[in-house]
């Protein structure tokens, strides 16, 4: 009892002044490896390796949340107060948690100021044992140690918004220019998945009392909030802030975008809300950002795949000019610039032709008529435009289309075009993914959800599954940073990966699938595809 009071005092006292003066400094040490003096943090490892600066930062191993991780067989223990200072015998079996690395022994001594300082400086644990050789010895002064310790007392200790005793709140975000068919398809999946999950808690929610609930201690229902944005993208961030103020959520799941996702990405990063696996053709490429996670780079990935093909074919193909066509209100513009930036037009002429909003069929025809024998057309166009391509092929060398924008194998390309067109296909081939797709497609069928857009609906189902797994793995540590960290660690173990051959993330990786194919149609009719080459990482 006295011990407990002592530790409470110990934990509270430094944190008062720390919050006022030192917390940011401690955070810099912890996350970036920068000392208050501006000098880099330095540490020595026993095997003779010195670390410095960012590489020496605590967060590399103990992670931003401080909740630690498992690196192969090496357990990297949590450094939050709950774990460091948990007092002797204060927890029963129901509070057992593998993160302690102590198994079921509830009799371990907690750390105190002295033993923790020794662990940081000398790599010696609270019981006098040598810590793992991964743990550097940091020759830190008393002030820095004190600020770190007080940082640990607050780290991941608050209840995050969107978490209550019986409910976890999530949002999905839909931009006003999102495709209405996909919108319906996505919401059907989300609503059903959430309902399923809550129905599972039959007989009312309760906190289980026996040791069997070690892994599923508290069963919370999930609540989905649909945040539909309106008006100009310039106002979206403010709308999202208002949504979050009115109905705080723990994380953003799935979602549907149109021309731009940037305001949503920025909101999530600023509000420190995980923004998991939205359905967007043009994600935001900012891998230093922490909270937004995407399936792949969408049309940017397509642009790089196409750029690579154009470069490889240079010389033998007779391409003299690359002509990119896109609509001004769509994501093709960014894709076209990405292709140029990736060097796809190096050594040949390059022009972009823009279809203005409301442009009619004949305007696209006119653009094509201006083609010449050395032109490679790149069409960043939606099914509506592809459908209206003239039956007669223009003068050209070759034509490439965006699979994601053009409807993939279901693209309504006219016959003549199907014979010659190549398509960027940043997914696994239909034949190859058949077995994997049984999971999402079977689930949709069982729940009698109409299949309206396979990619959107399968991705949404996948996003829900990944989130459900992650939430389960997190036990009761509903910490947003931890959620992202767990997804990083867990997603590559999945075998159900829908349209993607595999998924993988890591610190600093925010796009789970990295490659794609260039394909062409096997026949002028039908949806069978033939890959031009192997799965490629551009």
């Amino acid at each position, binding site marked *: 009892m006295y011990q407990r009071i002592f530790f409470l005092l110990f934990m509270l006292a430094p944190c008062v002044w720390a919050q006022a003066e030192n917390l940011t400094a401690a955070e810099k040490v912890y996350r970036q490896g920068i000392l208050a003096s501006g000098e880099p943090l330095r540490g020595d*490892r*026993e*095997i*003779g*390796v*010195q*670390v410095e600066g960012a*590489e020496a930062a605590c967060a*590399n*191993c103990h992670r931003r949340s401080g909740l630690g991780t498992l*690196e*192969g*067989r*090496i357990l*990297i223990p949590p450094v939050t107060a709950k774990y460091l200072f948990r007092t*002797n*015998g204060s927890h029963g079996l129901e509070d057992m948690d593998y993160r302690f690395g102590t198994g079921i022994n509830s*009799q371990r001594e907690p750390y105190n100021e002295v033993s923790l300082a020794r662990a940081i400086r000398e790599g010696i644990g609270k019981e006098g044992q*040598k810590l793992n*050789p*991964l743990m550097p010895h940091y020759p830190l002064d008393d002030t820095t140690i004190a600020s770190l310790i007080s940082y640990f007392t607050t780290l991941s200790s608050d209840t995050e918004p969107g978490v209550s005793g019986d409910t976890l709140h999530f949002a999905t975000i839909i931009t006003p220019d999102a495709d209405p068919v996909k919108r319906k398809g996505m919401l059907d999946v989300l609503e059903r998945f959430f309902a399923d999950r809550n129905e599972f808690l039959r007989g009312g929610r309760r906190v289980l009392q026996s040791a069997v609930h070690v892994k599923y201690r508290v069963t919370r229902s999930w609540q989905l909030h649909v945040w539909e944005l309106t008006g100009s993208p310039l106002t979206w961030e403010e709308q999202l802030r208002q949504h979050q103020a009115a109905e705080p959520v723990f994380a953003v799941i799935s979602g549907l975008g149109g021309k731009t996702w940037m305001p949503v990405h920025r909101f999530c990063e600023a509000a420190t809300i995980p923004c998991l696996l939205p359905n967007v053709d043009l994600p935001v490429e900012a891998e230093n950002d922490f909270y937004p996670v995407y399936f792949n780079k969408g049309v940017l990935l397509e642009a790089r795949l196409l750029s690579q093909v154009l470069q490889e074919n240079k010389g033998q193909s007779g391409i003299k000019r690359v002509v990119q066509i896109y609509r001004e209100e769509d994501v093709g513009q960014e894709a076209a610039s990405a292709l140029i930036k990736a060097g796809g037009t190096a050594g040949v002429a390059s022009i972009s032709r823009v279809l203005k909003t409301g442009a009619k069929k004949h305007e696209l025809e006119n653009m094509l008529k201006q083609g010449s024998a050395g032109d490679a057309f790149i069409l960043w166009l939606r099914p509506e435009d592809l459908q209206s391509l003239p039956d007669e092929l223009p003068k050209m060398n070759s034509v490439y289309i965006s699979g994601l924008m053009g409807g993939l194998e279901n693209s309504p390309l006219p016959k003549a075009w199907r014979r010659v067109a190549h398509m960027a296909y940043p997914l696994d081939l239909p034949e190859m993914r058949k077995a994997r797709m049984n999971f999402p497609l079977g689930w949709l069928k069982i729940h009698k959800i109409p299949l309206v857009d396979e990619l959107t609906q399968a991705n949404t189902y996948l996003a829900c599954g990944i989130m459900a797994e992650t939430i389960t793995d997190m036990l009761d540590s509903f910490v947003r940073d931890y959620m992202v960290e767990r997804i990083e*660690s*867990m997603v*590559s*173990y999945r075998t159900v990966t829908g349209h993607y*051959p*595999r998924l*993988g993330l*890591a*610190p*600093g*990786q925010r796009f789970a699938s*990295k*490659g794609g194919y260039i394909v062409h149609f096997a026949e002028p009719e039908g949806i069978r595809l033939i890959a031009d080459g*192997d*799965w490629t*990482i551009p």
Partner: protein
Amino acid sequence: MRIFNSKLLMLLSIGMIVPIAGAVLADDAVDPHAGHRKMMMSAMSEGTKTSTAEYVLPKIKLVRDDGKAVLLADELNDGRAVVINFIYTSCTQICPVTSHTFLQLQGKLGKDRDKVHLISISIDPEQDTPAVLREYAKRFEAGTGWNFYTGTTEASIATQRAFEVFRGDKMNHAPVTLLRAAPGKPWVRIDGFASADDLLSKYKEISGSK
């Protein structure tokens, strides 16, 4: 009461260590090779496990950091001694340590540097394109004679399987270093965090270099 018990246990276990240590010391006196053996043993860092192994390597195509497609066998059999580890560039825990160790090893090899080929094989090949590997090499100041390899996911897994280091996923990897004095010679495998000195002395031992 329980606390008392565990303290008692601790005291007991301390008590038990002393006689064992004594036995080791006593051993030195009677065994003429004990000193040598002990030196060999203590030469390796704590927590490492050294073993000898034969690996059958299938034909595997990899891509070197300069973008060139190569055969693993050709890279291993150019006559130089080889030291191999497995890394991925987004790794923030194990790999920075093993990569630093390679950097130090390059420095310590001195005049033998050109006789040893350091090989780091990515276990996250889709992320670690040749360009990404070159960046990583720069970060760890890798000199000539230290190459990084990527390839298809299948090729990376085949390589890991061949060397018995495949653990299902990059997130589940463990530190392993493999050394071989020359083509046809057996492999020495060190599990755990080997220091640059460990690797250097092992290299000298198997290659007979002074």
